[in-house]
């Protein structure tokens, strides 16, 4: 199993954290992982993305241009990454913020109202967790929900750990959605 993933959204939506969380969860289950953030002229409100690989074998090139899975949290990210998903791949998009529907028919398209689910469960700032929950449901081979919940402590910075109970709740809600 080798899954190449791109997480993309606005800066501040937590796409880098999402990638990191999934990596730590996968790593705890004995998988090889890599995470490359977009960096540089990025800022809050701008676009951010990260490239993640979760694999049973050592990661050769960590670069992901054509992902098996794209997770897009806003419209600019959908426009940028939908065309890049490999045929037969998976696209999960945040229907709370993205109005238009993805047009590809050669990939699996899954929508999740991430902000709404997060809002209902405590805070819309945890919308990224709803998406990860959905991803884990679709692709259980990446990591289990339990490992991912356990990885929150390590992935989330000390000053934001107080939000982890909400993060956990939203993760579970996204998984069940």
């Amino acid at each position, binding site marked *: 199993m080798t899954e190449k993933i791109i997480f993309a959204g606005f800066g501040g939506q937590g796409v880098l954290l999402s990638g*990191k969380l999934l*990596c*730590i969860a996968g*790593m*705890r289950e*004995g998988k*090889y*992982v*890599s*995470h*490359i*953030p977009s*960096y*540089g*002229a990025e800022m809050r409100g701008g676009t951010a993305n990260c490239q993640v690989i979760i694999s049973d074998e050592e*990661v*050769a*090139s*960590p*670069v992901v241009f054509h992902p098996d899975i794209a997770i897009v949290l806003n419209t600019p990210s959908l426009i940028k990454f939908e065309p890049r998903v490999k045929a037969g791949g998976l696209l999960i998009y945040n229907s709370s913020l993205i109005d238009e529907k993805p047009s590809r028919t050669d990939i699996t398209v899954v929508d999740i109202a991430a902000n709404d689910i997060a809002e209902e469960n405590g805070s819309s700032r945890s919308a990224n967790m709803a998406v990860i929950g959905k991803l884990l449901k679709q692709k259980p081979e990446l990591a289990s929900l339990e490992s991912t919940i356990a990885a929150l402590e*390590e*992935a989330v910075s000390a000053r934001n750990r107080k939000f982890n109970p909400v993060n956990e709740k939203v993760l579970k809600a996204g998984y069940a959605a």
Partner: protein
Amino acid sequence: MSDKILMKGNEVLGEAAIIAGCRYYFGYPITPQNEVPAYMARRLPQVDGTFLQAESEIAAINMVFGASAAGARVMTSSSSPGISLKQEGISYLSGARLPAVVVNMMRGGPGLGNIAGAQGDYYQATRGGGNGDYRTVALAPATVQEIADLTIKSFDIADKYRVVVMLMGDGFLGQMAEGVSLPEPSNQKFDKPWALSGAEGREPNIVASLRLNPEDALEKLNDELQATYTQIEENETMSESYMTDDADYLLVAYGMSSRICRSALRALRKEGVKVGLFRPITLWPFPEKELQKAAEGKQKVLTVEMSAGQMLEDVKLSLNGTADIDFYGRTAGMLPDIDEIVRRVKNYGK
């Protein structure tokens, strides 16, 4: 595996330096290596070390000179244009026989270029960007784990031979995170009787790179340096040969490009194309004999770099006309394309 931690290359570099006993870091910010000074600023005070953000790269390398002269383990880091500014200091350190670790997380050039990862500073690192007959050991990790392990080694090589060791990464390696087991300290001890440690009760030591008398002073130093470099070539050369034994074709690449080549190799092997990968870990000393062995009998050798072809020169010098050598590179922070490598290697068989 489960005891691993997820860390960025730039951060693990800082932690490994601390494990190696480095307590002094002087630097000036530049993307894509800013996590190194950020990490050191946070961590060094916790271990009674000194972090200092200098007013420039030139100031930073001269602070390295001072700390090293006093016998301390010391490091600076920067990225390509910043490393250019440090070259005078690196030459002075080499002339004064002072150990130091200098990290270059390479970015696109020339000039200020851009902030994406690149490998365009190979010449600068292996040929000497500063003046005079000196060499810097240049180590090129390909994974975050290897950044950690080679950082430990860098300090030992620097102290053992009293030379500057350059750790050559690139923006991608510095920014990426992978699972890593923090390395153990090597616990090697190096006496530094030459250090400016306080002259009470002994003759003062002199640390300088100015040696005005040509025959007695400067040529003698140069002879000593050359003898040291010969020892380093004999003892410290490192490389990895991967699936080279049965291969018809050989890829040669280091650092980030070697990982791209490894992906191409997997794709080619799946299709039954016998291809191997030779990866220099020391860029200087270049693993000449090891490459000769890996390239023996190969129909074609393809050198892949994130540059216009710099290591290519060492590949050609090492193989000295005994192999058919091709080159594929991207510059400016662009990455070599796996499909293009696959296409080329398949073409060699036609």
